[in-house]
């Protein structure tokens, strides 16, 4: 005999659109998510810099003069801070995702995060060296 599921009248609550303002943990999460906008922005800026270089000295000078504006400098300092916050929290979370064993030894979380930081610093140093050398 088929079993008939009993369906009483259930009450369902829908999640309010501003669910994230209810507690500090959620607010911190949403703010951290918003810092990814700075990551996207710097990617777009890189494309604009590349395009200006391609278009020639006039386009490059126009871009540099626009970026030299005090409001733009203040904006970029703020964007850089949020970018750094995003990157640092990202690297700090990396041991959650990366678990590496060498035989019986599990590489400690500190080394995993440290490896990411070392790679970050190394790549930045190489780019800085290439810029200075040119």
């Amino acid at each position, binding site marked *: 005999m088929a079993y008939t599921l009993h369906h009483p009248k259930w*009450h*369902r609550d829908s*999640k309010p659109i501003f669910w994230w303002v209810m507690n500090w943990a959620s607010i911190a*999460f949403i703010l951290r998510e918003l810092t990814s906008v700075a990551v996207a922005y710097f990617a777009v800026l890189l494309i604009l810099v590349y395009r200006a270089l391609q278009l020639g000295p006039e386009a490059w000078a126009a871009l540099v003069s626009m970026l030299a504006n005090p409001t733009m400098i203040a904006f970029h300092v703020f964007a850089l801070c949020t970018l750094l916050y995003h990157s640092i929290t990202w690297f700090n979370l990396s041991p*959650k*995702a990366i678990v590496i*064993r060498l035989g019986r030894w599990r590489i400690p979380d500190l080394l995993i995060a440290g490896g990411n930081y070392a790679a970050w610093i190394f790549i930045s140093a190489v780019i800085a060296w290439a810029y200075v050398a040119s």
Partner: protein
Amino acid sequence: MPTNITLQVLRYLPEDGGEPAFQDYEVPLRADWVVLDALNHIKDHIDGTLSYRWSCRMGVCGSCGMMINGTPVLTCAAFLESFAPGPIRVEPLAHFPVVRDLVVEATDFVNKIKDVKPWIVRETEKPLSEGEFRQTPEELADFKQYTMCINCMLCYSACPVYGLEPGFTGPAALALAQRYNLDNRDQGNQERMDLLSNDEGIWSCTMVGECSEACPKGVDPAGAIQRYKLAGAADWWKSLITRKGK
């Protein structure tokens, strides 16, 4: 120190046809009482119509999870004194349909647990004559924390993604899938990956991390899912290179 504390309990009586509403109960504020003791006191001495689930009252069965002042907790581990002077708001677990008062409908959760194939999958069974599967303490340590889950559903109430997208497989089920993926006796990794590497599976998780905060047994579902995502990304690259396709 006051001698009583007020519990504001969300009541839902489907037969009345009304919306859920809070009802106040005053209970003795005893140092050795948890919220579950207070609910039992209400049921036994004040209002026998109050409905809620509980069983072991010692953090093992996972039945008595409720929202206490908006946070998902096991009521058997929530001492009244830590909420003094009160009042204490008691509500059913968030994100689940409410059947009555503090009782939620858990079928969706149970189905999701079942869907991740939470058992040891073998490509070929080993004959009994070959003996048991051996495992070193290190191999056990790889997945042991995920075996501590008691299916209390607190992580589902803490997870805003599950609240917004009920199709999400959810923290406990994904951590349980990882429990078997990381078990060296299991060979069902690919089967589970095919099931869970999608928009309703691991890729729905936005790493809020509240599931791991809410877990009363120290399981880290958020970590398990991030690890699973890395394996999922590696699997995708592998399928791209080997042109395996899906």
